């Protein structure tokens, strides 16, 4: 029994806020592991990633030329479609769901601050999402190593990195939705709508606008990168090609104008979306949100 006491004072340097946050993060991670959405998304992403890798190598895999660059294009589409949906719905249901079930009240009645709770959820869900993505990418990497000789390890890892960043960023957006709504079903609905907007509507709108109003190239580029998904796409393409010229005149314009600053700019857009969303979520949750 004497050693029992060791567990609490063994982390004396660790501030209590951090320990509470970590406790919430671990709880979130554990719950993700047992929850259906997590298993479903992980399986779906893994299957799709492997299938995409196979298909993009079909017909040419034998001569091992295609390597990663072609698979990347397929994976990019998949990631842009699946990852924001996964992260945003996960974020959206997290707080709203607890509120609806009444568990939020009980948690907040403990000696914890709301920020600790939100941050813990954010960290736990981020870890769960990234782990889920890593499984899918890992299997996909296995296919590439086997069928394509595995050229482009660096590019591949950069895609994995940016995808995890995208997941974390869209998770923040999901959390913002979650703290602003009372019911999990409403939060999910809003998240799906935001997803639709980011994935399809904003791009289609910009295309229509471009055809109608003949946006200049810098106007189109600036409008496009406001969308975190476009910023992600450009970051990923930069990681693969070191230049955006595959994106036509607007890409060439961006590469020429911003040069070495471009990756930082795009990462900045993503980071800003993540940080501002989380900040807004934290403000709403600590200041305004009822339980």
């Amino acid at each position, binding site marked *: *029994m004497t050693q*029992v*006491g060791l*567990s*609490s004072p063994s982390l004396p340097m660790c501030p*209590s806020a951090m*320990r*509470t946050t970590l*406790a919430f993060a671990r*709880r979130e991670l*554990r*719950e993700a592991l*047992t*929850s259906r959405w997590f298993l479903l998304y992980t399986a779906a992403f893994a299957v799709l990633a492997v299938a995409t890798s196979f298909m993009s190598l079909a017909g040419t895999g034998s001569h091992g030329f295609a390597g990663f660059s072609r698979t990347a294009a397929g994976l990019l589409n998949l990631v842009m479609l699946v990852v924001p949906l996964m992260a945003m719905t996960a974020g959206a249901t997290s707080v709203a769901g607890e509120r609806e*079930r*009444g*568990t939020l*009240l*009980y948690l*907040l*009645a*403990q*000696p*914890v*601050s709301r920020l600790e709770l939100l941050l813990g959820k954010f960290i736990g869900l981020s870890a769960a999402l990234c782990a889920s993505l890593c499984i899918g990418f890992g299997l996909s990497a296995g296919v590439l190593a086997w069928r394509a000789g595995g050229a482009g390890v660096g590019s591949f890892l950069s895609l994995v990195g940016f995808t995890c960043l995208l997941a974390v960023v869209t998770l923040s957006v999901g959390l913002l939705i979650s703290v602003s709504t009372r019911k999990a079903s409403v939060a999910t609905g809003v998240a799906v709508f935001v997803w639709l907007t980011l994935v399809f509507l904003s791009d289609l709108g910009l295309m229509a606008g471009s055809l109608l109003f003949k946006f200049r190239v810098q106007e189109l580029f600036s409008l496009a990168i406001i969308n975190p998904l476009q910023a992600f796409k450009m970051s990923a393409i930069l990681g693969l090609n070191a230049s955006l010229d595959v994106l036509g005149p607007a890409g060439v314009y961006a590469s020429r104008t911003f040069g070495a600053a471009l990756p930082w700019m795009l990462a900045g857009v993503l980071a800003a979306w993540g940080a501002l969303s989380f900040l807004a979520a934290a403000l709403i949750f600590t*200041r305004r949100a*009822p*339980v």
Partner: protein
Amino acid sequence: MIHVKGVIKKFGPVAAVDGVSFHIDEGESIALWGSNGAGKTTLIRCLLGVLRFRGRIVVGDENVKRRGKMARRLIGYVPQELAFHDDTRLGAAMIFFAKLRRVDPARCVELLEQVGLTGHERKRVRDLSGGMKQRLALAVAMLADPPIIILDEPTSNLDAVGRSEVFEMLQVLKRKGKTILFASHRPDEVIGLADRLLVMEKGRLVRDTTPASQWPAAGAVQTMRLVVAGEREESAATLLRDAGHIVHLNGRGLCVLAPHDKKALPIRLLAQAGVDIHDFEILEDFNNEEGAR
């Protein structure tokens, strides 16, 4: 131990708690009395610092508004019904809260034994009975051995057996010298547990009294439950209140207080008014039970 001054909580235009002030000393046991919607739950949530409010609440030496986390450290909270992630196992839930409270996990084992949940560690929260849930909630509340226990109608969802189990535990806590604040609309509980009684109506604190003065013939009062047709409940309650009875609706009929030698009085009143009584039940008298021991 708890100072409440001018607390106002509005939901939109409606003031759920409207200018409530009171004071609780260390070791006191206080009942919040009032019908549904009187503002008891809202007041408790303000005390916990879970809701934002106007006014001032100090728990221990901590201002709830500014140092809510520190204040909550002094409070163990038992909700009406424990709400925790349904898939979590009882033991895991206990350890989680032990971590939040920085309590040695060994204490989980100790407490589970105290509340009689040893051997149920692997059960999932969703599979627990109402009584087990409330005992778990009590165990969680007592994890850090806080000086204050706040309970929001802890027995209202329980059957008779569960109710008496929880009630007994509360009496143990009271004997240990904990400061207890609990909301209830069961006179038997109030009489058996409370030193003082704060009566709330429509968000206001209307009386700060004692069970003895609220029910002068406390020993002689019994609670009975009358079951009438659902649509007649409201009018029946009004009728009985007009006749001087204390009545509350708890969703399972009318709970009516009556002198133990005139229990037929409310029944007759209702019968005269043409309200059919489907069933009635005399609820246990805790004082008698205590006496029997």
